[in-house]
């Protein structure tokens, strides 16, 4: 995938630069310049826009008294490309560079084709509508440096996939209902074939999913949400499908196994306080031969409260806002009891994150987080405790 995304990036860039060269119509050799956005650009209608965001932070963590010391992390540098050639045709792409160039991914590249506000067609690499965070993950929107664990380790954010589907908005008085639904290639064998010794959906995001489905049977994702103006939104979403390679060269090589994710998310303003969070339930069909380390049922939640405690001018900046923020997280990666002992299977965690954010503008902020996390292993031994401080910044551009 890496080389492809780099290629795409350069192709787009070259064409963008190409738009400034004089127009030469007709000749086949100049086909690269014979493109609508260039013609539009030459007429003075800029149809494409570039944006993005950047996030970086420091880490100082200690696990049961052992610390790796202080380090700095360049988390993400993401570039957005947006274009609208005709009013109801929109294109957006997001290219992500994680930890410098350690991981480069094309997170989104999709086309929206609106027939009516209640009915739009979408295709390409889409962000799967599963919970709130997956589609709403830009760091400048969040007061916390780390992403919610339920959103990244149960719902495998950022989860994008090749998909085709429909979405729309249906207003009703002060309410509006939205829906999204897509057919996707889906998650793959890594859900079990991973190095986490647990059922782990993020490991099911095989890069090959952008090219072809591993088992020829698509997955389905859908989210419906209700929004009340001035109050907030609640959403229900689900995702499901076969995840394992049960067929190879037309031969049946394994049983078919399904995975389902159900998510609930909310996002409210109560007076000055903002509350948001999501909960997920994962049901995975696991062959009993692989053993009980791989859970069939998993759940997790995160709940954030953000409260503005001060606003005013600071260092010549107007309307700077200081927020206090608190996050609670809980995950059980393996709900069940051991066949051998009848005792509870562990593999769960709890975390709390108090913090502050200083928003210089709605799009740029500094964050300070303190994080305490208790990890209980599969057998239910005393929790491993990790805590630390993070200082970070994030901004759109």
């Amino acid at each position, binding site marked *: 995938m890496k080389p492809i995304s780099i290629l795409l990036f350069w192709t787009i860039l070259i064409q963008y630069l190409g738009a400034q060269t004089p127009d030469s119509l007709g000749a086949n050799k100049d086909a690269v310049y014979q493109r609508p956005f260039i013609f539009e650009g030459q007429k003075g209608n800029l149809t494409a826009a570039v944006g993005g965001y950047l996030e970086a932070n420091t880490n100082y963590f200690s696990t*049961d*008294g052992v610390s790796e010391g202080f380090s700095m992390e360049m988390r993400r540098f993401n570039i957005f490309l947006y274009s609208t050639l005709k009013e109801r045709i929109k294109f957006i792409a997001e290219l992500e560079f994680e930890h410098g160039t350690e991981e480069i991914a094309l997170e989104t590249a999709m086309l929206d084709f609106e027939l009516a506000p209640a009915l739009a067609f979408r295709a390409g690499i889409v962000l799967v509508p599963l919970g709130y965070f997956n589609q709403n993950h830009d760091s400048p929107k969040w007061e916390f440096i780390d992403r919610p664990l339920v959103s990244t380790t149960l719902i495998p954010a950022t989860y994008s996939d090749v998909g085709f589907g429909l979405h729309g908005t249906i207003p009703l008085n002060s309410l509006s209902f939205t829906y999204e639904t897509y057919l996707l290639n889906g998650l793959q064998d890594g859900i*079990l074939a991973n190095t986490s010794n647990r059922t782990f959906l993020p490991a099911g995001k095989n890069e090959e999913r952008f090219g072809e489905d591993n088992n020829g049977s698509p997955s389905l994702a859908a989210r419906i949400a209700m929004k009340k103006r001035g109050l907030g939104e609640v959403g229900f979403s689900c995702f499901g499908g076969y995840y394992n390679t049960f067929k190879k060269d037309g031969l049946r090589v394994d049983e078919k196994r399904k995975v389902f994710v159900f998510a609930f998310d909310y996002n409210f303003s109560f007076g000055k306080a903002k509350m948001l969070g999501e909960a997920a339930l994962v049901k995975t069909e696991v062959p009993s*031969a*692989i053993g009980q380390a791989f859970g069939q049922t998993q759940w997790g939640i995160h709940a954030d409260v953000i409260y503005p405690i001060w606003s005013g001018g600071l260092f010549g900046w107007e309307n700077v806002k200081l927020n206090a923020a608190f996050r609670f997280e809980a995950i059980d990666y393996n709900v069940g009891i051991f066949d051998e002992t009848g005792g509870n299977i562990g593999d769960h965690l709890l975390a709390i994150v108090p913090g502050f954010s200083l928003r210089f503008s709605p799009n740029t902020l500094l964050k300070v987080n303190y994080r305490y996390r208790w990890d209980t292993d599969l*057998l*239910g*031994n005393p929790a491993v405790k990790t*805590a630390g401080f993070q200082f970070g910044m994030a901004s759109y551009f």
Partner: protein
Amino acid sequence: MKKWLTLIPLLGISLLSCEKLLPPTPADNEVLDGPMDGLSPTQLQIFLEGDEAFAEIFSPQTGLGPIFVATSCAGCHVGDGKGHPFTTLTRFGNYTNGQFDHLLHLGGGQLQNRAIPGYTAETLPPEATGISRFTPPAVTGLGLLAAVPDETLLALADPDDVNEDGISGRVNYVHPPSFFIPSVWHHSDAQGRYIGRFGKKAAAVDLLHQTVNAYKQDMGITSDFDLQDPINYAVTSHPTDPVADPELPAATVQSVVFYLRTLKAPAPRDQHDPEVVQGRQLFMDIQCGKCHIPTMKTGISDIEALSEIEFHPYTDLLLHDMGAALDDGYTEGSAGSAEWRTPPLWGLGLSANAQGGSIFLLHDGRARSIEEAVLLHGGEAEKSRNAFQQLSVQERNAIIQFLESL
């Protein structure tokens, strides 16, 4: 207003109390993992490489299986401590005409009861009569045990009970693997067999033998030392998983062996507590210390920190007949089916922190408390157990306190 300025002292205070906000370091004698003292920086580096390999979780892409029991060494030897019934190994075989048959053609001697997706896990064949379950032991302090010369074990052994104390103690002679390189002090018998000292039946001659077997039999990981994946003969005679063999280079296996050799010995707690002192005395008085020998000494070792060191493992590394109740009808090497190697008792008090909050003692974890483990002693340990039973409740508790302090 500059109300926000008040935040600066607040932030200052919170930074000053930073250390308090981080999880505390547990005392050295509260955890089992960690290197022994006296290692050089180079040795510490190899130790860390081994530590990482010991913790590595294997997947089908990195060679796991196709049939296996668990996915990492550390998954069974949690925090280098004992394991849980969930990660228990099952071994089996069959006695025919007084000869023990490991039923290799049926997937014996060890059951791989798990399989990667798309493969079939093994089940016990009906031919298996002797079935034994082994709970993973702690792996701390093994370098010291490995460095005790064979003469010491032979001197402690009393196979014919010449001293008539009812306790014999034998060494287990086993055929070593082809890659075994004996040191000057290794002793072999007339049949070319060597003395085993690791494992519940003392069937592994050294830590390399144990480690290579663990990679293959417990996880289905091949290495330069053993190139064949375990096979489930019930479904195929081909051992293939999707990864080319060897799945692990010799260097990684050796770093794990080095790690095992240099893991510190468990450090005792509360040694001056009067009850612990009394318990230690009673433990010796009622002959527990005849098998659970308190003190041993290493010979000369290539690792300075292991050379000529006195240490306190509470084992004699010998096999003892433990009576009918602990006889599973299963054996390895020249051990009898009722014979078990005396397990070291160091680190016993920390068992619950690795076994999921409660304890599972004896070879198969059947004893749910120290007292129960002692009461299940029979055979050569019967006299000693009877003496334990005759102690007052306070005295028994003192012994338990003492064992928990180890």
